């Protein structure tokens, strides 16, 4: 589209689903006033405020940090708040619930599987050397910080799960985001629970389920690069497996 193309209105098309409606999912379209700075989230808000108050979606911060508003936009996982209608002109812009998750209503998916798995990776520091408050902070050099820092940027938006073909086939798979987060704690110089977490990562539902498509890293809005975390852990997992046959290690 040329830059000068400014329609006055644009069509927003939403795949709607109401569990109480025996008719199943249906597509509904609305025409909303277009402005060049309009995000997909703002388009949905316009519909809810002015056209149909029953349209249901999650949102909060509007600035790509709370992770609430993940949706499929024209088939690709995006945060609604930082995806702009101008990039989909002349429209229609098709919005659907995140792929691979059960839909609760309209654009709201059931996130319980993600939350439960989050707890399973034990996402807290289990200190190598316990430290009292009076002893002050651990030392951690910028280089040590850099080893895990980018993996700590995960906002739990679950876009990578919607992108992951393996998670789509087998919801038991731990999945990209949480592998990255496990890797974040494993790589933290303060933590001593890597072995315990690696057992989960080794397992059938761990890193070996990944088929190295790499789409997870492409859709990540925070450049967490879960594919990299998964691959580093495949290497680590393989090394650990071989290490079992070395002397001095049971």
């Amino acid at each position, binding site marked *: 589209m040329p830059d000068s193309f400014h329609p006055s209105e644009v069509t927003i098309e939403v795949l709607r689903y109401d569990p109480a409606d025996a008719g199943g999912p249906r597509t509904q379209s609305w025409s909303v006033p277009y402005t060049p700075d309009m995000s997909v989230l703002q388009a949905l808000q316009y519909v809810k405020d002015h056209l149909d108050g029953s349209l249901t979606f999650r949102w909060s911060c509007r600035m790509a940090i709370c992770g609430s508003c993940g949706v499929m936009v024209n088939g690709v996982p995006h945060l609604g708040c930082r995806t702009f209608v101008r990039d989909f002109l002349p429209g229609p812009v098709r919005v659907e619930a995140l792929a691979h998750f059960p839909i609760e*209503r309209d654009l709201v998916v059931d996130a319980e599987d993600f939350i439960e798995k989050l707890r399973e990776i034990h996402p807290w520091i289990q200190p190598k050397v316990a430290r009292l408050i009076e002893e002050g902070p651990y030392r951690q050099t*910028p280089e040590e910080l850099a080893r895990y820092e980018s993996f700590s940027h995960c906002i739990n938006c679950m876009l990578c799960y919607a992108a992951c073909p393996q998670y789509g086939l087998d919801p038991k798979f731990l999945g990209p985001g949480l592998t990255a987060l496990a890797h974040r704690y494993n790589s933290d110089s303060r933590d001593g629970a890597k072995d315990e977490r690696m057992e989960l990562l080794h397992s059938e539902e761990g890193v070996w389920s990944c088929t190295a498509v790499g789409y997870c890293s492409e859709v990540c809005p925070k450049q967490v690069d879960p594919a990299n975390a998964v691959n580093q852990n495949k290497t680590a997992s393989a090394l650990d497996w071989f290490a079992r046959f070395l002397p001095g290690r049971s």
Partner: protein
Amino acid sequence: MPELIETDIAIVGGGGAGLRAAIAAAELDPKLRIAIISKVYPMRSHTVAAEGGSAAVTLAEDSLENHFHDTVAGGDWLCDQDAVQYFVEHCYEEMVRLEHWGCPWSRLPDGRVNVRAFGGMKMERTWFAADMTGFHMLHTLFQTSMKYAAIRRFDEHFVCDLLVDEGRVKGVLAIEVASGEFRVIKARAVVIATGGAGRVFRQNTNGGIVTGDGMALAYRRGVPLRDMEFMQYHPTCMPGSGLLFTEACRGEGGVLVNKDGYRYLQDYGLGPPDPWPRKKAMELGPRDRLSQAFWHEQRKGRTIPMPGGDAVHLDLRHLGRAKLHERLPQICELAEQFLGIDPAQAPIPVRPAAHYTMGGIPTDVRTATSLPGLYAAGECASSGIHGANRLGSNSLAELCVFGRVAGEEAARFASSVQGGNGVALRWQAQDTAREALRALERPAGGERLAAVRDEMAKAMERGCGIYRTAAEMEETCRTLSELKARANAVSLTDRARGWNTEWLAALELGFQLDVAEAMAHSALARRESRGAHQRLDEGCGERDDANFLKHTLAWRVHAGSPRIGWAPVVITTSQPGTRAYGAAGEAAQNERKADAAHA
């Protein structure tokens, strides 16, 4: 009859303060059953959006006295000094605790935690994790909370009432969002940690969830709201959306210029304009003064017109791309994605937007409210540390310091009393539930919810903005009163029970209107100018310690306007003085020192 769930402590809100409270209670007494009830998954809470950092005296050359004085003077002497003292004494240990829990604090080359300069602070004492500090603190607290078996979460549960019996709080009534079903969560102590109310203003930095719920819950149960007229306008926000560009931009050396490229803050008592970031001067002045300076520049026609409102420029170019991406990565991302601007190449247009609710539920230094069993912490509370103007980086520290106190105090209280009568609470809950459901039963064809909500936000901006007049505040009070009637008649298009976000928004709008009324009426009653409350009308333009060195209290009056009263400010060591910044501030401080030496 709603389902009954037995707990010992119910924590309403799963942001920084709520999570910290839950962890503190679990650590104090692992036998307690602790519930965190949050209308969103905890990691979506608005703590996530805090950017710049969290205060704690850290450097050897800094002192608790410095942090105390910066905070009390920054609050224009409306702070409760006992609370400030407790606060500054406990910030550091809380930051260390977060460090032990894995918070990825930014570091110095030798591995020690780095600190940065912030507005109104005499020294570098702001701990930061790049410019995603709130995000990292929230995720650290949330993930750490998962290791405590005693903590049971009720995610996506919307609290619509406190249950009060025999003069004390005995639980909450919540709606499970997914099903729309009511649940009575019985508790022997309740902690409110629901954050602020910034969404009652039009241009604001806040997430959609920041609707003052907890403040209204307490207010409706007879607890007054304190100092509600003090709403912080953050000076550097995106025109239109109000999204925040952290004060750390200026802490790192960013400057503010008007349409002529002139560092206009020097015209408002904040100079001299050094080329480096001088503490407590120019761009590192306090937020109220900077937002007020913008207002004057706009009146003088020296701002830049933008589609989202007039702006000035936040210029970060001289910091260079490498430093910008290391220290301010999120700012770069926001500027690039939302405005198409590379901050290394071009200045960012910014303007003030409503940001932080300084007032709230009054608490003592132990976070107790006037209702036995009820505690409050975080932005929803008026802990007394912010006074008339909060300093940046004090609120993240507050979440931890007073979140911990609230958790421990609630745990002690819960262990000291018997539980409530479940049957009585369920009857009480049934009345509230019936009332809440009424919105779903109203006939179609009435006004839309958004119309009332948007008018409220405009009225608040008009009457309770950066500068205020009696006439405009009175008009806002009248408008709010009309809007309350209209809010009770809006028609919802969604009639479902499960995931009915329109229904929940209607309940939130009720909360917001209550809080907005408390703000507007408190503002009207305070006939002086102090901190973030500035008046242009005759006789109200100056601080008036003789008549207004006191807290405002607003009590809810059924079917009427709030009743306004007053409460004393706790002053321990710092008598009200001249609040000055820049060169004038340094002169005033030297004078104080000289006086102290002679005394």
